């Protein structure tokens, strides 16, 4: 470029700056580089923790009209759209959603070119074999492949480079600040994740309940510790257009022993529909057998968050053993219900009363965990409408569960070119992808693999658009 720059800015100016280091950021960086732009990617975390929440993902929801390598049957656009409409309760933007859906049908050859490998749906995930393409080795393998490819293509990567603010001029990106260093670029992609790791923010968003508790204090974060939402907050202060509700988050009930961050998938306990759930007072609070577990697991985080102490206890007997995906921590085991209550620290009398009432209310027909069977309770509130069998065969097991936040929905408003908006006007060179804008498509709810579909689609769009914006600006500058 023939343009001279002030000496103070000694680092050579990049065409595209990508802020973030997960799937969406990498897709953007790769696309921008492939379009001919020079690219600098700033990852907040150290190298060993790179990839944000993408390192914990396992698949991508994919539209396809016919069987494809690891995908069976067909998953047409309309069905994908209806699924999305259902899980979001209509809180979605149809145009952007359909854009994601269509992109999901064509992105995999590109992903493969950059080293991502796919595998058939895992044991225990047959219900996803039609809709979701699994990454061989999971999300971290995908992230590794993208970093390798980015490096090979000459994308400059810096770790431990958290960006805390941007320099904007009239809605245009000028520079970003990381570790006090000012970094200029002709265009910028924001793909730095949500704010779910920011416990202070979660506390503030969830507030205080009628019991005087701060529920978010008892939340665990299923993913990275680096999604502090610094840039989302900064963009709010910069008056970027925002979408989403900060109290909305994908929230799953996970093992209370899970680490505060990065527990990932293994901390789930898939036994809820096989037994009963009680709260700290040893009372049941929701129908455990309402629907198949894959369709219901995501409501239990919020249900547990509403209980006193934000804790729930999944209680099963030995009939359930071998019928659910093995959890990472062994359950608390006891030979009697009395003993189990003691071991779990639950009020014994109330626990025995609850279990006794449940056991007496069970109307056992033909138990079949693979269908909505006819085993149910009668005269019990709340009822258990399927798979209701008495918890009476020792040994008994209990798992304490806490709300585990997967991701947040609050983000930046965007359009089909992934542009950031200020007061209803799009920026010419600032783009957004991934969790920072997923709320445009996913205003609430979730369905497996759709986060990666959004991240991949919008990461690629943002990268392409950023490269175009940067290279056009370069042409103008030279002219």
């Amino acid at each position, binding site marked *: 470029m023939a343009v001279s720059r002030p000496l103070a800015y000694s680092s050579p100016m990049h065409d595209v700056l990508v802020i973030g280091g997960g799937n969406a950021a990498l897709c953007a960086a790769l696309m921008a580089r492939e379009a001919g732009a020079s690219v600098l990617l700033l990852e907040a975390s150290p190298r*060993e*923790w790179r990839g944000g929440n993408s*390192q*914990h993902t*396992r698949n991508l929801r994919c539209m396809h009209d016919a069987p494809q390598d690891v995908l069976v049957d067909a998953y047409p656009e309309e069905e994908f759209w209806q699924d999305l409409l259902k899980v979001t309760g209509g809180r979605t933007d149809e145009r952007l959603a359909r854009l994601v859906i269509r992109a999901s049908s064509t992105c995999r050859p590109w992903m493969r070119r950059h080293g991502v*490998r796919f*595998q*058939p749906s*895992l*044991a*225990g*995930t*047959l*219900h996803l074999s039609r809709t979701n393409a*699994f*990454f*061989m*080795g*999971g*999300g*971290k*393998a995908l992230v*590794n492949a993208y970093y*390798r490819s980015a490096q090979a293509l000459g994308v400059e990567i810096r770790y431990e480079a958290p960006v805390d603010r941007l320099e904007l001029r009239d809605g245009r990106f000028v520079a970003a600040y990381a570790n006090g260093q000012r970094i200029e670029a002709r265009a910028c992609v924001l793909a730095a994740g949500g704010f779910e790791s920011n416990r202070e923010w979660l506390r503030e968003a969830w507030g205080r309940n009628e019991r005087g508790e701060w529920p978010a204090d008892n939340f665990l974060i299923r993913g990275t510790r680096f999604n502090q939402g610094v840039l989302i907050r900064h963009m709010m202060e910069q008056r970027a257009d925002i979408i989403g509700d900060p109290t909305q988050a994908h929230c799953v009930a996970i093992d*209370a*022993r899970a*680490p505060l961050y*990065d527990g*990932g*998938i*293994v*901390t*789930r306990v*898939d036994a809820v*529909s*096989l037994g009963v759930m009680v709260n700290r007072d040893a009372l049941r609070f929701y129908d455990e057998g309402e629907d*198949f*577990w*894959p369709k219901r*697991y995501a409501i239990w985080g919020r249900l547990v968050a509403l209980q006193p*102490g934000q*804790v729930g206890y999944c209680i099963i007997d030995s009939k359930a*053993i*071998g*019928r*659910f*995906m*093995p*959890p*990472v*921590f*062994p359950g*608390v085991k006891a030979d009697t219900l009395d003993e189990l209550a003691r*071991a*779990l*620290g639950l009020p014994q009398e109330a626990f025995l009363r609850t279990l006794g009432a449940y056991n007496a209310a069970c109307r056992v027909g033909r138990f079949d*965990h*693979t269908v909505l069977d006819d085993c149910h309770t009668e005269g019990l509130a709340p009822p258990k409408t399927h798979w209701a069998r008495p918890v009476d065969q020792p040994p008994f097991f209990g798992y*304490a569960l806490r709300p585990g936040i997967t991701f947040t929905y609050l983000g930046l408003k965007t359009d089909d070119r992934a542009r950031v908006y200020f007061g209803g006007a799009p920026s010419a060179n600032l783009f957004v992808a991934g969790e920072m804008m997923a709320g445009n498509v996913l205003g609430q709810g979730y369905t497996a693999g759709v986060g990666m579909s959004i991240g991949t689609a919008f990461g690629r769009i943002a990268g392409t658009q950023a490269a175009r914006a940067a290279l056009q600006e370069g042409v103008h500058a030279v002219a």
Partner: protein
Amino acid sequence: MQSLDALAREAVALAGGGSPVDEVARQMQICNACRYCETFCAVFPAMTRRLEFGAGDVHYLANLCHNCGACLHACQYAPPHEFAVNVPRAMAQVRRETYAEYAWPRAFGALYRRNGLVLALATAGGLALFLVLLLASRGTLGHAPLAGDFYAIFPHAMLGWMFGAAFLFATLALAIGAARFWRGQAPGPVSGGAVAEAARNALALTYLDGGHGDGCNEEDDAFTLARRRWHHFTFYGFLLCFAATCVATLYHYGLGRPAPYPLTSLPVLLGTLGGIGLLVGPAGLMWLNLRRHPLHGDPRQRPMDRAFTVLLFATSLTGLALLALRGTGAMALLLAIHLGTVLALFLTLPYGKFAHAVYRVAALLKYQVERRQASRLQLGSD
């Protein structure tokens, strides 16, 4: 919340780990709840057939593991994560126990633990033995050219008895080890199909291809087929050398044609080709081993791996040198060195890295047998 604190303490204690077998059981509990690595190799599908991991299961899975490294680099729970999952290392540490525990004679099992030293001593002893024999028979290490006639130095019968015995001992020791291992596993009836597929997996090193054909990991998260290729050179080189010996034995006893054989004869051609493979392969494996990612495998076993690789390389190097110089006055010395090296190799086969071959094949066979049986689990969907 006292009970939760207690649960948390228990979880931390669980993460502490105990013996290598306990450590694999702990990690498999985590992997079994994750399963992202299912198609990298046979270990993970075998794991999903289980809910608990007793010592027998652990030894089986450990020997099924090819230490390719794919699951480590892909692992969201690998260090520095507090779950500290490093399956290739945990498995390698158990394999060392397998080799020691199932060894025959049992007392020799301890040799695994000091394998580098044992190999060095065996090699030195083998060399010394042949040099002394040489001196005793001729009074000198040098001599006038003998046109490659080995038996002018050491009588054929003596060599036959010595190496025959060493070979039989090694075979017997390994077979007994394998039989003990197999008895502890009891996978059920073995079908021809299972045998054929296990053999193919072993001969083609199926599980060094990463499940996607790009290969396994060496110094970083990139995939390469290098290890598979170098291992093929090594293994098939070894096999060709063995075939050369068998053909020569046949020539000697069956056709009454004693060595030396011309360069274009079958035994020499097989031996030369095998020897080249056994130079190239171990050299490549050594090069890779020196550059392996520090988290791969068990660091304490590196001396064992390297000593065995060096011994294979030395066997081939001394053999080829002997072939090249068999017409000179250095033949006797080279012959003594070569035979000493080969003797050391044979005597230490059952107590060194070579043992991985028999336990790996046994584990692969068990996998193929088990895979053909219906799973006893009826896990719901996650």
